[in-house]
Structures are given as structure tokens and as C-alpha cells.
């Protein structure tokens, strides 16, 4: 039992946090330069699951990707360290004994722990998205074509593409180019219910937990080469997104509680100085 306790205490040490953060800074500094020089090795992370990327681009290019694996390791270490440290502190916080004289102060002391827990939740939510999320790329449709949302009975149909072309004279390079676009999609559910939504570049839509993004489309200009009309859609499902929102909300709560604590401590200090 003793080695477990000492390992746990070692894991919860603030000095370990310092070393891990230092390691992360050094690793990310190296990673910044390597990443910039080998964008095409890391780009597929946008379309592959983490495991798929690891067994292909990751493991077969260790001379370039080592920093990413080290980053994951350091991050995992930081999560464990934060978790151990937070559990120790929370255990001390809930330890039965005499009720604290300053009850509000006692509750406000939870602020850093809330933020630490939120940090862990946010990281876990990213991991969930990368490991079990749906990232269905290159769904290419012609006008009138349909496809089924992954693992769902709902059909998606491309109705039409609308562009708002630049009509001015001043910006010559914008002439014949769209300022915005609307790609109209009809979703037909198994019960016959139909919903029509418009997706655009940088303007995704949501349907049954899926986010649908416009990757490319035609026609995207007036005149010139007349291309076959099509849209290329990305269909994503990020199961960790609720967890991410919860983590973010908890972090905001922690920050607000911390703000109250700081303001309150400041007021009490001012009061003490005035009455001294």
C-alpha cells in the first residue's frame, strides 16, 4: 500500500506540474517548427481519427511526429497530475471537522478546483471527438442527388446552389466571385418529416446532432470555365461537444467564483488596513 500512496503523492506534487508544463513548452516549441515544415503529414489529422492517423502517418514518420506523441504523453501526465492534485485538495476540503468560521470563504476556495476539473473535462471531450467522432469527408452530390446521414435513416438531398455575386466595380478581383452562397439541402426523416436548410462556406448547419459543412462547390464564379454543378459536403458528429460545452461552462463558473473570492479578499484586506 505504501508504494501506491507514495506514487500517488508524487503524482499530485505541484513541482511535477511545473516540470510537465516546462516539458510541454519545450515540446510545443520544437513541434511548432516541425509542424510548419511538414504540414502535409499533420494535415490528415483533420480528416482521420486519432488512431487511424497514429497507425499511418504517425508511426511511419516517427522522425517527424515524435514531438506529437511526446505532447500526448505530457498532456496525459498533466491530466493525471491535475486529477491527483485536485482529488487531494478536495479530500482536504470535505474532511469532517469543525465547521469553518468563514463558510462563504470555504465554498469560494473551490474555484481553482472547478477550473482544474473543467480543464480535464475539456481535454477528455477533445479525445472523445478524435477517437469516436464521425468525420465523413467528401460527400459529393449533384443537384437532386441524395445520401443517408451515417448511422441514421435521414436522407439528405441537394436541391440547388445560390450565389450572391459581387456587383461592385471597385474590387476588380471580386468581380464574378460570390460574396456568399446558399446550398439548399432537404432532410427527409424516416417519419416523413422534411426540413430544408441552407449551408454555406464557414456557415455549417446542424441536423440530428450532425454538423454539415460545405467543403467546395460549383458553380462558384460567373463566366470562365463552365464546371459541372456539384457540392462537396463534410458530415461530422462530435460526441464530445456537449462535454466540451459543459467543461467550458464549468470553467466560466470557476472563474466567476475565483473573481468573487479575489474581490472579497481584497475588500477584507482593505477593511483590515483601514481598521488597523
Amino acid at each position: 500500500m505504501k508504494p501506491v500512496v507514495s506514487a500517488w503523492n508524487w503524482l499530485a506534487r505541484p513541482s511535477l506540474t511545473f516540470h510537465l508544463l516546462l516539458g510541454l513548452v519545450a515540446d510545443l516549441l520544437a513541434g511548432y517548427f516541425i509542424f510548419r515544415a511538414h504540414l502535409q503529414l499533420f494535415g490528415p489529422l483533420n480528416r482521420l481519427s486519432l488512431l487511424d492517423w497514429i497507425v499511418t502517418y504517425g508511426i511511419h514518420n516517427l522522425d517527424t511526429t515524435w514531438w506529437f506523441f511526446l505532447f500526448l504523453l505530457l498532456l496525459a501526465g498533466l491530466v493525471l497530475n491535475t486529477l491527483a492534485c485536485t482529488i487531494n485538495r478536495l479530500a482536504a476540503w470535505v474532511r469532517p471537522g469543525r465547521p469553518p468560521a468563514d463558510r462563504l470563504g470555504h465554498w469560494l476556495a473551490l474555484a481553482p478546483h472547478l477550473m482544474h476539473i473543467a480543464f480535464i473535462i475539456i481535454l477528455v471531450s477533445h479525445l472523445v471527438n478524435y477517437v469516436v467522432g464521425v468525420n465523413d469527408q467528401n460527400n459529393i452530390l449533384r443537384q437532386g442527388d441524395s445520401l443517408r446521414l451515417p448511422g441514421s435513416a435521414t436522407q439528405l438531398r441537394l436541391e440547388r446552389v445560390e450565389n450572391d455575386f459581387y456587383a461592385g466595380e471597385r474590387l476588380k478581383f471580386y468581380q464574378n466571385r460570390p460574396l456568399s452562397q446558399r446550398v439548399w439541402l432537404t432532410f427527409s426523416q424516416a417519419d416523413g418529416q422534411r426540413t430544408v436548410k441552407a449551408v454555406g462556406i464557414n456557415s455549417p448547419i446542424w441536423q440530428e446532432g450532425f454538423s454539415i459543412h460545405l467543403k467546395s462547390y460549383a458553380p462558384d464564379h460567373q463566366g470562365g470555365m463552365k464546371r459541372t454543378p456539384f457540392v462537396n459536403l463534410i458530415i461530422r458528429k462530435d460526441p464530445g461537444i456537449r462535454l466540451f460545452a459543459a467543461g467550458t461552462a464549468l470553467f466560466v463558473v470557476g472563474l466567476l467564483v475565483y473573481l468573487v473570492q479575489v474581490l472579497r479578499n481584497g475588500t477584507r484586506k482593505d477593511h483590515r488596513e483601514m481598521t488597523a
Partner: protein
Amino acid sequence: MKQSIRLAGVGLALCLALVALASGPALAAAPGFQAIGEFSLRGLEGGRYEITDGLGRVLHLVPRGMEPPPGVPRHEIIPIPVKRVVMTGGRDVSMLLALDSIAVLVGVDGKTADWKIGQVRDGLKDGRIVNVGRSHSLDYELLAALKPDVLFTWDEAQIPFLADLGVPVVINYGTEARTLDTQINFVRFLAPFVGKEQMAEAYVARVKAALDRVAQRAKNAPSRPKVIWGDVWEKRVMVEPGQSWAAQLVDLAGGDYLFKDVRGSSCLEISLERFYSTAKQADVMFTYRSPESGMASKVELARTNPALGDTKPLASGRVFFPLPEYNQSGHRMDEVIEEIAAILQPQLFPERKITLFHALPEK
């Protein structure tokens, strides 16, 4: 601190062991994985391959007679070695020459006169090769009649039409311009289609040797001319981005490419202001605008966009355009490298005859 380092070491080993454990079956089935720019090639057992095209789509190369992977639609399975290929884009067609496989070509885009490769021209004349239309508007009836094993094209809009015909499509363009490394290694991507892996290695070795030779000599250059590679149009300007193979070749061949900081797709549109401020410093300009596209002289080019008329290459520098052969010279990559070096550093490469580029006359 020492304890932390020890723990980090143990942790790293654990992490790698976990990764190996989690991906064990996949790794065992993936003896070779090559990333070739945005393309990839993964060798599987039984001579099968799983490839990723320029769009990030996964396709399966399955030896003829072998059972295709279950659940994969027909238009994502390519029987290898391929016997009937339709390909758009001169550069990739010419790569088939490097693999001694031009005989598999049954369809191309463009008319006979557009082609400088003798075998393609002859094939178009005698009907062995068919012109399937323009790359952005293919003739689907002709394509269907050709029954190709695969179509190589840049245009993703073709995918659903060809899927209806049961023809697999490989998108041979990525979202970014190919780097020099990608351009040279692209032959390795094509090789499994035609079963000529050894020829691909020989090609890569030959081109890399030429690169080394040129780079070695270019090191002795007394000065490095400043170079831009781009097209001037009436309303817009386009450049080859810094990571493109053309730009990287310029740097390697003794030039100083001025759009190094620009990144993106080939012939990328940039602002007129940026083009102007950079072009003013350039000694040499390469442009795809040529007499064939109605641009017969520097004066005419300057007239297209008068704001750029006083930039150094147009006013007093040198402007070169590639001849039509250049776009179909993938198999002659070593010569392209030497010719660009000879243009930029003529005193270092006096023996090299320029056959793929031409200087744009003053008037």
C-alpha cells in the same frame, strides 16, 4: 527533477507500447505506408494497396482475380495492374512514360494538336486513344464506351457521374500545390497501378541525382537572381506559392524565389499590391502566359495590366514562359531542373540547351 525525467521515460515507453498494442492488427497489416504529399499509399497483404487520393478519398487497388474487400462499392475498387486508363493533365500522363506504361492509356483530354507526347498523338490519330473532351466537361458517353479501369482527373465533380458508371476516379490534384518532394515521388503513387514499382525507384533515383548535381553546382553561384513565377491578367494576378515544386526548384537551382512566404494551391491568386511590391525587386519572371495564350511579348504583357508595366522583369529584366512540352515533361524532370538552373545561372551550366522554356521577346 531526476525522478520526473525517469518517470517521463517510463511514461513514453508505456505510451508507445500502448499505441503499438492498440494499433497492433492495423500495423501488422500495414507493412508499408508512404505519405506522398497529400496522397498516400499503404501496402497490404496479397499485393493489395489502400491509397488516398488528392481529395483524401480512400480507394483500393486489388490484384486481378483477388476477392475485393467486403462492403466497398465497386467504384472504389481498382483492379491492378490497370489495363485501361483515362487521364487528364499532361504532366501525369507523361509520368506514365517514366513507368513505361503509356500503352494503358485509352483516353485523354484535349485534341491531337495539344499533345506533344508522340505516343499520345499517334494513339489519338489511329484511335487507340480517345479524346474524352475537356477536363471540366468530359463526354460521359465516350467514357462509358471506353470502360476504363480508372479515371485520373483534378475535377471532383466527375466522381458521382463516374460512380454511376462504376468507374473509379482518382483525384490527382491536392488542395495545395505539389512540393518538389511530392512531384518527384508521385511516380511511386502511380507505380502500383501499373505494377512498375522498380521503374519508379529508378526514376526517383535519376531525378534526385540530377537535383544533387544541380544543387552542388549552384552553390558556387556568384549571386542569386531574384525570381517570381506568376501570371498577370487584366484584373488579377496569380503566383506559384513558395511550397510549390516550381518555387523550390528555383531556390535549388541558384535563384532566390520571392514568394516563399505564400502558401496554397498552384497558380494562387494574390493581391495586385503584393505582386507589384515583390515584382519590382525581381530579376527574372516565369509566366505561363505565352504566345499560345495570346501573349507574344513583354510589351503586350505590360499592356494587359498597365499597373505592373514598370516592374523590373517587364521593364528591364528577363521573362520566360514554358513551351507546351513543359506541361508534358514529368518523365523529363531531371531536364526541367537543369534547364531552370541554366536560365538562372547560365555561366554555371553553359552546356545545357534550353528546350522547355523560351524568353518572351521585348516587343
